């Protein structure tokens, strides 16, 4: 009996001393999966946060990501500079892998490995450079679109390492190009839509255009507004605003100079609508004399197969380090943004590296465990 009383008292005291649980109600909230993002912190990466891939000589840039599983696995294709025997550098495309979205083979802190070069310039029309990769998996084949002086090329691979190029560019500026396409199309981003078509968004003349293909090999320009005779860009820069005319605390648009480096990520929403999401680099002039150019990563989107993109006025990622060329790896409840940005705040011009940012920003990633043991 005495023991029983003691147990009851102990349980009662323990129960009275417990605290209420922390309030919830905001777990697993819906998002469009596209930010806003927060840069990774030091505890989340092996190297110098937020960089996951950095080498002053190789100058990794313009990432393109393929999420390989539902648990943060990523294959990353990046532009890089390959050192030549004559002391020069050739722009190439390399690939690497991370099992946690952060600890890449040959990444920042993995000093014994280097990402594998998978594409070098070999065709005359490439004019000695390949870059701005856009990789996507179609069935068991990896499609790797890339930019070069002669337009946008395509290479395909069954194993993701040995690529076979198309002999000619799959999309280039030609006589039918609209007047706003003042430069060769560059910074391609290609997605495979649910209806089987390939949609290419590219940068030209500081705006974004779109082309479509049935087979991924031959693209035609897509008019966002068929009711007009001209083919318009799907998005241009924001209108410039005098900062003095804005209310206190309201920032001017971040993309008034030009837009570029699109990253197209389509999805079908729970409402059954095709949601074409596009991350892009936005640029604007800054400084007292407007001589500086700052950049940030923006988000624009539309519903449906074609049409103009509508932008969100708030950047999804802005670090004031010339961040640009966004790539997205998306999993069921989280996504990782990769950009290239200045590695140094004191050196001009700064070397660049691949930095990572995470969404939802309220979550903290566990400590990284190990670098991937293969690219």
């Amino acid at each position, binding site marked *: 009996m005495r023991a029983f009383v003691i147990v009851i008292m102990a349980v009662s005291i323990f129960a009275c001393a417990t605290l209420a649980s922390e309030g919830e109600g905001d777990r*697993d909230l819906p998002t469009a999966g596209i930010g806003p993002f927060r840069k990774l912190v030091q505890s989340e990466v092996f190297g110098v946060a937020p960089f996951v891939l950095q080498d002053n000589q190789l100058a990794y840039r313009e990432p393109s990501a393929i999420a390989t599983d539902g648990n943060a696995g990523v294959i990353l294709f990046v532009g890089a500079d390959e050192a030549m025997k004559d002391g020069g550098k050739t722009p190439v495309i390399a690939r690497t892998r991370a099992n946690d979205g952060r600890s890449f083979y040959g990444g920042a802190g993995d000093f014994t490995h280097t990402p594998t070069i998978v594409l070098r310039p070999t065709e005359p029309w490439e004019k000695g450079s390949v870059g701005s990769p856009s990789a996507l998996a179609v069935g068991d084949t990896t499609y790797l679109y890339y930019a070069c002086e002669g337009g946008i090329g395509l290479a395909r691979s069954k194993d993701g390492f040995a690529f076979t190029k198309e002999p000619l560019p799959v999309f280039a500026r030609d006589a039918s190009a609209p007047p706003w396409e003042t430069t060769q199309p560059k910074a391609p981003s290609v997605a495979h839509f649910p209806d089987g078509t390939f949609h290419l968004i590219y940068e030209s003349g500081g705006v974004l255009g779109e082309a479509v293909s049935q087979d991924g090999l031959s693209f035609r320009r897509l008019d966002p507004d068929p009711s007009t005779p001209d083919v318009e860009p799907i998005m241009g820069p924001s209108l410039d605003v005098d900062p003095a005319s804005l209310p206190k605390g309201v920032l001017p648009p971040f993309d008034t100079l030009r837009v570029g480096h699109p990253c197209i990520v389509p999805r079908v929403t*729970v409402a059954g609508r095709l949601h074409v999401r596009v991350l892009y680099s936005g640029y604007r002039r800054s400084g007292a004399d407007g001589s500086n150019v700052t950049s940030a990563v923006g988000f624009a989107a539309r*519903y449906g197969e074609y049409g103009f993109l509508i932008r969100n006025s708030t950047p*999804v990622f802005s670090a004031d380090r010339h961040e640009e060329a966004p790539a997205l790896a998306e999993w069921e409840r989280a996504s990782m943004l990769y950009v290239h940005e200045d590695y140094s705040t004191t050196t001009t011009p700064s070397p660049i590296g691949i930095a990572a940012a995470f969404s939802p920003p309220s979550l903290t990633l566990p400590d990284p465990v190990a670098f991937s043991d293969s690219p």
Partner: protein
Amino acid sequence: MGRRIALLGAATFFWTSAAFANPPDTFGFGSRSTALAGAVSADATDVSANYYNPAGIVGAKSFSAMVGYFRVDHHLALNGQDTHVDPVRGINAGFVIPGRIRSLPVAIGLALHLPDDRISRVRALRQEQPRWELYDNRNQRLYLAANVAIRPFSWLEIGGGVSFMSSTRGRLDITGKAEIFSPQNSSLRHEVDADLTAIRYPQVGVRVHVHPRASLAVVYRAEFQLGLDLDARLYGDVSALTTAYYQLATSSVNAFLPRQLVFGGSWRVRDDVRVNADLTWVNWSAYVPPVAQLNVDLNIPPPAGGWPAGISAPTTPAPITILPIGMRDRLVPRLGFEWNAFSTERIDLLVRGGYEYAKSPIPRQTGTTNYVDLDRHSMSAGLGVQWHVKSHIYSGTLSFDTHLQWSELVSQVFEKNNPADFIGDYRASGHILNYGASIAAQF
């Protein structure tokens, strides 16, 4: 005796100064009334009448005290993922004391919902963040009501009460010196000043016995707004480089109870069957969402020679424009029945059931805001046992009541007009399970 009861009633009425918002609005009060889906404004004479219709307490035949416990589990999902809205749980208790002042029948009553997890919860989320607006935060608080009722005529009962809510005003001051290059050497002084101020709101009710077997009722519950005002001020020296001044003023309505007008009827169809119906008008259009209005003043002048490399001063955040929620007034019908299935001189076994339909007052969330709510069908059931005791120790009725209420929220997909919305389309769905039991003694 009557005079003493009146004095006790007055004391109780004016002593009630703590306070309270309204979980009973959403989940009912007392197992019997919840089993009847809350359709009891013309019927309740027990402790639950303190919430449903204060006039009803004068219908109590003798002193009545009740204590019970209930728990509400939310299973509310967005895109199929449970958002883990906190359960509402706690003790319901109260008493009713009938008596007379001279020949006038009077009664006093007190009702209390005491949560066992937290007394109150303060939350002011960004208006863009999805939240279950009517379930997430509003029901996480104490409820206490005190009432007085009279019966001037045999066919008329009038009752009323007043409750006090508590608003929060607070101020946080931080002054001192901040070392941005060696934060451990910073020297900061903190000063906190918080104040809870009272807000009062009334409730009144009338019950009319139009027939020996039928009663009608009208109940009015006033609106209240539970404010939350916080000010923060930071002023000091930054590493001897410059000074920093930051002032934040935030104001929000943390909880809002809309005005309600209830029309109810109760009809004893047979000696053993009672049917009740309530229709509640809820003034949701006056609703103020719990979004903080921020005013920020930030002034950090650059040091002589400019900022060190890698350091840039933060800018003043843009003011928040609170978008109107646009809720609509609603009529909420409730139906309930009670069948005395087994009756002897000592025992009554009662079977109860009810239904409530609460159409969501919140419009489809197609814009920037994400106040999630769905139409709700609630079906309830319960059992009651009344034991009539006559002994030298206790003479009266002991009651044991249980309730189980299932609320099904009609699934809905919210489609966003702006494709560049950070939240995007989502599907909301869910159900709510409310269960509990209470015991009461009348003597």
